[in-house]
C-alpha cells in the first residue's frame, strides 16, 4: 500500500537538512510506487518529445557546440563580463548588487523589501532564490513570498519542496493537487471553487483565479534570469504560463537574483541559446513566453529595478579545471529526464535544489565534498553517459563525476576515516607483494570456496557490494597449482 510506505518529503525552510544522504534516500524513494509511476511516465514523455523537436533541426550538433563555446567564453572572461553587465544595466536605470554568499543575497533582498515597507512579494520560479532559501528567510521576517508557477504553487501550498527544475510537482498526482488547493488556498487568498474537480483544466483555472489577485495587488516582484547579457545589461526569463510576464511587468519594483554564470557576452549569443534551451527543456520549438528587459523603461513595467549578482560557491566551481564546465548549465533538465538513476529515485533523494546528474556534480562543486550529502552525490550515477549526450551545452558529467569520486576518496584519506574498500586494498597490496603469500591465500580461498558458494551477502561494510551482486564461485585449484600439476610436470 502506497500510503504506508515511507516517503521523502523534505520540508521547506529546513530545506534539505535532516535528509538522509543519497544512498539511503534513494532506498526510501525506490519504495514509493506513486513517485516511481509519475516519474517514469513524465521522464519518458518529455524524453520522446525532446527527441522529436531536436530531430527537426539539422544543425543541432552545431548549435550545441556553439552553445558550449559561448558559455566557456563567458566564463573565461567572467570578471570583465560582470563589470560590463553592471555598467550597462546601471546606465539603463537598474541598481546592481553583489552577493558573495546566500546570507548576503538574503540581506540585500530583505533590505529592498523593507525599504518599501512591503509585507508580500510575488515570485516567478527561480533556482537562485531557492538556492539561497529566500522564501524561508522572508517568512522569518514576516514577509510572505508567493510562488506563482503552477507547480511551485502546488509545492508551496502542499508544504513540501520541488523535485524537478521544470515540473517541480512531478511527485504529485491530480487528486493530491485538488485536495491541496481545496485545503490550502482559502487560508492564503482566494479559495478554490467549491465544485473543483481533478481535471487539469479546472485545476489550472483555480490557480489562475487565486493568483490573479496576487498579481494585481503586490507591488514587489522577485525573479531569477535564464540569461544576463553583458553587452547590453539585458535580463532574459523564459516561461510557459504567463506568471513570469505578470511578475516582471505588473509590480512597481522588480528584484532579479542572477547567478554570476548566467551571463552571455552579447545579445546575439541568444540566437543560439534561445534555440537550445526550449527544445532541451520543455521539448518545444519555443516556450510560450520569453521576456527580455533592460533596466527601466519609462511607462512600461516596473519603474524600480534591482539585480543581485550571486556567487555562493560559483567561484569555487569556476576554479576547478574539470568541474568548471558545470557552470555552462542552463538548467534545462534534459539530463534529469534521460537519467536512469533520477527516473527511479526522483529529485528529493539528491537532497538539494539541484537534483539529477547536474546536481550530482554541481553541489559538490559549489560546496566541496566534506559533508556526507555532497560526498555521496558523485556516486549517484551508473556513468552511462546519457546525460552528456543530452546536454545542450555539452557538459561531460561522467568525467566530472569520476574526478569527484577521486576527490571524495582523497578527502576521506585526509580526514583519516578508514573504509572497507581502502582496508581491503591494503590487505590485497600486502598479499600480492609476495608470491608465497598469494599462494597461501589462494589455497585458503580454494578450500573455503565450496562454503563461500553459499554466501550470499558479505558481512559488515562489504555488504553494500553484495547487496546487488552474487559472489563469484571460487575455483578449488589456483592457476599456480594447476600449472604445477600440468605444464609444470611436463617439463
Amino acid at each position, binding site marked *: 500500500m502506497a500510503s504506508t510506505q515511507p516517503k521523502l518529503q523534505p520540508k521547506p525552510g529546513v530545506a534539505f537538512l535532516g535528509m538522509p544522504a543519497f544512498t539511503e534516500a534513494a532506498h526510501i524513494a525506490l519504495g514509493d510506487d506513486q513517485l516511481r509511476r509519475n516519474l517514469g511516465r*513524465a521522464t519518458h514523455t518529455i524524453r520522446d518529445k525532446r527527441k522529436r523537436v531536436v530531430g527537426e533541426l539539422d*544543425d543541432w550538433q*552545431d548549435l550545441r557546440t*556553439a552553445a558550449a*563555446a559561448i558559455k566557456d567564453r563567458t566564463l573565461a*572572461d*567572467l570578471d570583465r563580463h560582470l563589470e560590463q553587465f553592471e555598467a550597462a544595466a546601471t546606465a539603463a536605470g537598474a*541598481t546592481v*548588487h*553583489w*552577493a*558573495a554568499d546566500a546570507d*548576503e543575497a538574503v540581506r540585500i533582498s530583505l533590505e529592498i523589501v*523593507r*525599504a*518599501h*515597507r*512591503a509585507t*508580500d512579494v510575488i515570485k516567478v520560479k527561480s533556482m537562485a532564490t531557492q538556492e539561497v532559501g529566500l522564501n524561508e528567510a522572508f517568512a522569518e521576517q514576516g514577509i510572505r513570498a508567493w510562488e506563482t508557477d*503552477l507547480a511551485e504553487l502546488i509545492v508551496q501550498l502542499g508544504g513540501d519542496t520541488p523535485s524537478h527544475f521544470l*515540473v517541480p510537482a512531478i511527485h504529485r498526482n*491530480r487528486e493530491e493537487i485538488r485536495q491541496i488547493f481545496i485545503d490550502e488556498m482559502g487560508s492564503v487568498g482566494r479559495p478554490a471553487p467549491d465544485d473543483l474537480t481533478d481535471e*487539469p*483544466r479546472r485545476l*489550472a483555472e483555480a*490557480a*489562475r483565479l487565486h493568483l490573479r489577485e496576487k*498579481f494585481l*495587488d*503586490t*507591488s514587489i516582484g522577485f525573479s531569477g534570469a535564464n540569461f544576463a547579457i553583458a*553587452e547590453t545589461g*539585458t535580463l532574459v526569463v523564459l516561461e*510557459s*504560463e*504567463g*506568471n513570469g*510576464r*505578470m511578475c516582471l511587468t*505588473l509590480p*512597481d519594483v522588480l528584484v532579479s537574483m542572477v547567478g554570476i554564470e548566467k551571463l552571455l557576452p552579447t545579445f546575439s549569443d541568444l*540566437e543560439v541559446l*534561445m534555440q537550445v534551451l526550449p527544445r532541451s527543456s520543455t521539448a518545444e*520549438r*519555443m*516556450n*510560450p*513566453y520569453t*521576456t*527580455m*528587459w*533592460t533596466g527601466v*523603461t519609462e*511607462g*512600461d*513595467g516596473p519603474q*524600480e529595478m534591482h539585480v*543581485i549578482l550571486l556567487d555562493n560557491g560559483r567561484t569555487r566551481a*569556476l*576554479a576547478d579545471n574539470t568541474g568548471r564546465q558545470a557552470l555552462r548549465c542552463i538548467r534545462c533538465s534534459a539530463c534529469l529526464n534521460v537519467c536512469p538513476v533520477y527516473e527511479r529515485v526522483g529529485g528529493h533523494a539528491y537532497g538539494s535544489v539541484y537534483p539529477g546528474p547536474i546536481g550530482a556534480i554541481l553541489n559538490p562543486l559549489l560546496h566541496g565534498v566534506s559533508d556526507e550529502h555532497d560526498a555521496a552525490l558523485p556516486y549517484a550515477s551508473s556513468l552511462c553517459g546519457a546525460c552528456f549526450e543530452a546536454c545542450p551545452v555539452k557538459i561531460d558529467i561522467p568525467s566530472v563525476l569520476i574526478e569527484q569520486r577521486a576527490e571524495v576518496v582523497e578527502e576521506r584519506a585526509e580526514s583519516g576515516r578508514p573504509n572497507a574498500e581502502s582496508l581491503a586494498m591494503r590487505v590485497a597490496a600486502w598479499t600480492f607483494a609476495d608470491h608465497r603469500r598469494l599462494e597461501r591465500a589462494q589455497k585458503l580461498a580454494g578450500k573455503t570456496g565450496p562454503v563461500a558458494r553459499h554466501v550470499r551477502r558479505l558481512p559488515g561494510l562489504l555488504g553494500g557490494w553484495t547487496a546487488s551482486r552474487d559472489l563469484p564461485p571460487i575455483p578449488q585449484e589456483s592457476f599456480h597449482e594447476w600449472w604445477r600439476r600440468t605444464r609444470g610436470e611436463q617439463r
Partner: protein
Amino acid sequence: MSRDAAPRDRIIGPMGNKEQVLAAVRGAIKDVAAPEIPRGYTRDLGLDRAALIDLFATRVDDYRAEVHVIDRAEVGRVIGNVLADRRVRSVVVPDDLDPGWLTTVTSQVVRDSADLSARDLDQIEGVITGSAVGIALTGTIVLDGGRIQGRRAISLVPDTHLCVVEADAIVGTVPEAIARLDATRPLTWISGPSATSDIELDRVEGVHGPRNLVVLVVTGP
C-alpha cells in the same frame, strides 16, 4: 490585500561586496583562455516569402492558436468578425492603432493610457496589437513595445490577444530575428497561448497569460 504604490523610505543604492566577488572570479580564471565560437549553425532557411508565411502559419497553428493569412484590405473586417465570434465584449488597443482596423468592431474599445491600471485591464476581455518580428521556424511572435504594440501589460492581462503580424516582418530563423531586434527595448516573445504541463504532464492552454491567441498575418502593400 490592498495595493499601495510601493512607498519607499529611502533610495536604495548598490549593496554587497563587489570587489570580493570579482577577486574570487579573477583568482579562479587566471589561467583560462577564451575559446573561439564556431558558428556553423543555420542562419536562414532559403525560403521565399510565400513559403515563410506558410511555415509561420503552420507552426503558430501547432500551438493551437488561431491563424488567418489575409490581405491588407480585409484587416478591419476580420478583426470585427474574430471579436464577434469570440464574444469579446471589450478590447484595449494601443493609442497609435490605426482606426481603420476598428471599423467593424462592435465591442467596447478602450484606448490605452497611463491612468489605466492593471485592475482596469483585468476588466477588459481582449486586446489588439501589432508586432515587431515573426519567426517561421518556431511559430514565434516578438513584441518590442514599438509601433501599434503599446506597453507590455496590455497584451498580458486581457484573456484574448489578437495580434497582427506584417508578412514582411516574418523571418525564417531565430538568428535572423535576433539580428532585427533591439535589446534595449522591452521584448516579449510569444509562442502560442499561455500553457502549462505541470499537472501530470497534460498540456493545458491558458494559465495566467491570454488563454486565446489569434494571429492575423497581413499580406499586400
